[in-house]
């Protein structure tokens, strides 16, 4: 269930607020550079950064969307979207009720959560073997 907040929305159109959008974009720029140079990934927790209503939308709009759009169904849906800047991913976790429980910008070749975890592979293998008898 999603609520809209009239106060927050009307506030968004007004004056500039936290001014965190631009610094974040710069941080992503640095992270991409670092990834190319040393292969170190970066994860930015968007919910840990104070943003005024509307600012996050602005950030996401500026990041745009790229070629990959993945959906993960594990304890609720998660979206993994490559932004218009390859290597910069927007990861949104939701719980079963559809509430956002985490929102991250990940800078790497592929977000960790998309990779098949060994123990799940092992469990899957077992299941397949059982099925094949």
């Amino acid at each position, binding site marked *: 269930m999603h*609520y809209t907040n009239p106060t927050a929305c009307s*506030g*968004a159109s007004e004056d500039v607020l936290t001014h965190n959008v631009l610094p974040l974009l710069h941080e992503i720029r640095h992270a991409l550079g670092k990834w190319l140079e040393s292969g170190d990934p970066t994860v930015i927790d968007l919910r840990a950064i*104070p943003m005024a209503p509307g600012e996050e939308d602005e950030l996401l709009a500026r990041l745009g969307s790229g070629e990959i759009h993945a959906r993960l169904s594990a*304890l609720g849906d998660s979206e993994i979207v490559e932004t218009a800047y390859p290597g910069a991913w927007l990861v949104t976790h939701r719980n079963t009720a559809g509430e956002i429980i985490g929102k991250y910008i990940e800078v790497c070749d592929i977000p960790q*959560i998309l990779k098949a975890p060994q123990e*799940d592979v092992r469990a899957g293998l077992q299941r397949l073997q059982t099925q094949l008898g």
Partner: protein
Amino acid sequence: MARDKTLGEVLRERGISRRGFLKFCAATASLMALPPSTVPAIAAALEKARRPSVIWLSFQECTGCTESLTRAHSTTIEQLIFDTISLDYHHTLQAASGTGAEDARESAMQENWGEYLLVVDGSIPTANPGYSTIAGISNVDMLRETAAGAAAIVSVGSCAAFGGIPQAKPNPTGAVSVSELITDKPIINVPGCPPIPVVITGVLTQFLAFGLPELDHLSRPMAFYGTSIHDRCYRRPFYDRGQFAETFDDEGAKKGWCLYKLGCKGPTTYNACATTKWNEGTSFPIESGHPCLGCSEPDFWDAGGFYQALSIPTGDLPRAAAYGVGGGLLAGAAMGALNRVRKNRAVQAHEKVTIDDLEKERKP
């Protein structure tokens, strides 16, 4: 449900995938304001954590804290975790009643003596133990008895943590917080009126993963109460620029300016509201246009008014100034009159100074 299984095992038995677990760990790190890089450590710790027995005692409270915790309509991962713990006694939630209920508590205590986690909400009356009893046992006695075998105590809500509203002046029941009665056990305070639901589960999760968390001077977990509302508030730039809403319906209020002048306690309140938010992450009081009440701070009810900033004098200053002027003028006039008398006396005592006077007492 076997108690010796690890959390990881329990989750897997319930068909939670590794990805789901990682997702939960990421959400937990975010909640605890830990950097995303700590997710693997959290995962590893939770994986191995064993589910403890939990006894939940409710004293002088409004059930708001329990409401807060159980408010969500659908299953969330936190609730899954919560389900995973063994909630052996919670008199509001449990099906059992009467002696059966008390038996459950006593047996849980016996089985897990020294290891169970005690969660308390509500304050404890001390003026007369009869003000609040459960199954004929006074709150004080029940707390003392149950706390004796607890590994640690989590005081959920401002009442258990600081005395809360029952303790507000004139405090007719002599309400006290848990920490005022129990001094020999580690106590984690999770204040708030109510606390943010995910903060309650987050603290439990943190306790499961890492044991006793780092606490601030009020025994609150630093992970959730480490920064002030003010420091994480999206309206902070307005404060810094000196742009304030003066009333609830003025231009400033509509533009979403800082609510400091309307009594916002954000600068002195330590909680995660500004980032975690409420109602499924929708908003928090300031975002909805209302000043923070400071509900996770001690004595928030008696701190001089919700709509008065914490630094504002509460007295009647014009009256004080008027008394001052009146008294000052009166006393000053008296002193001035005395001075005039003194001066006149000196004038009257004046003897004409002649040239001969000057040389009389020459010193070498």
